[in-house]
């Protein structure tokens, strides 16, 4: 077991253990903070895989943008003392069963398949290559995605708009804009 392996397991744990809380915590705020850790773990795994650009994007977009947005929403929509009323085990039986089933199937596939993967080669910086690809082969998807983002931006703004125009609008709009900017960067 090399140091790299150890790092991997640590990162995997950082991803999965908080994820349990994300799923299970009755307190939505706790869940939100645990999601932060999970996303951090995934970013770490990206970095472990040599995807430096993605790791950074993950940090900035997800943790900086999405998560802030999530937390804002959580704060704004929180009814005092209203925990998840129906977090009881009974409700979780059927979903749990099916999720477990899917998991079993996936694990069987993951372990039962001979991947025949070659050993790792040295990781190269990927940012330049990704940028070049965006401007050449992936130019159309790239532009489409920009459009989608624009549409989402406008859509979110319209959805959130209240006829009388309260402060919430501005906040939500600002939040969306933040996300937008970070993606662009």
């Amino acid at each position: 077991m090399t140091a790299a392996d150890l790092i991997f397991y640590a990162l995997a744990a950082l991803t999965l253990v908080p994820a349990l809380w994300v799923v299970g915590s009755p307190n939505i705020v706790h869940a939100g903070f645990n999601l932060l850790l999970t996303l951090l773990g995934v970013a770490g795994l990206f970095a472990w895989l040599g995807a430096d650009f993605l790791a950074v994007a993950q940090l900035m977009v997800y943790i900086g943008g999405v998560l802030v947005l999530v937390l804002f929403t959580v704060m704004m929509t929180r009814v005092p003392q209203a925990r998840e009323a129906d977090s009881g085990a009974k409700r979780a039986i059927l979903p749990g069963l099916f999720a477990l089933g899917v998991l079993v199937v996936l694990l069987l596939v993951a372990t039962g398949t001979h991947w025949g993967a070659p050993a790792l080669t040295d990781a190269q910086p990927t940012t330049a290559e990704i940028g070049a690809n965006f401007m050449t082969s992936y130019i159309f998807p790239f532009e489409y995605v920009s459009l989608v983002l624009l549409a989402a931006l406008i859509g979110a703004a319209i959805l959130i708009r209240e006829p009388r125009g309260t402060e919430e609008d501005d906040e939500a709009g600002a939040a969306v804009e933040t996300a937008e900017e970070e993606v662009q960067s």
Partner: protein
Amino acid sequence: MMDVGLSHFVVVSALLFCLGLFAVMKRRNAVGILMGVELILNSANLNFVAFSRYVQHTIDGQIMATFVIVLAAAEAAVALAIVLAMFRNFGNVNAATATSLKR
């Protein structure tokens, strides 16, 4: 214990996916559901990057992952806007109450 390979990442991603799936199915809080979706998306991203690294040796997987991240951001923005609208209309964010489509 074998070397960390593709199958490890697939296993991690599978676990993450199932947790996300479970969250989406179980959570009543709309924001909670959204978090579950994020988990699922992240598991997919992990797979993209891992396969890109181990199998294909090209950058395509990472580009896909980039798109997924971008779309996830868009989705989060819209979904959260909906959640806010819902909160305004129903007074809570319980997904079970938003069944106006029924009938």
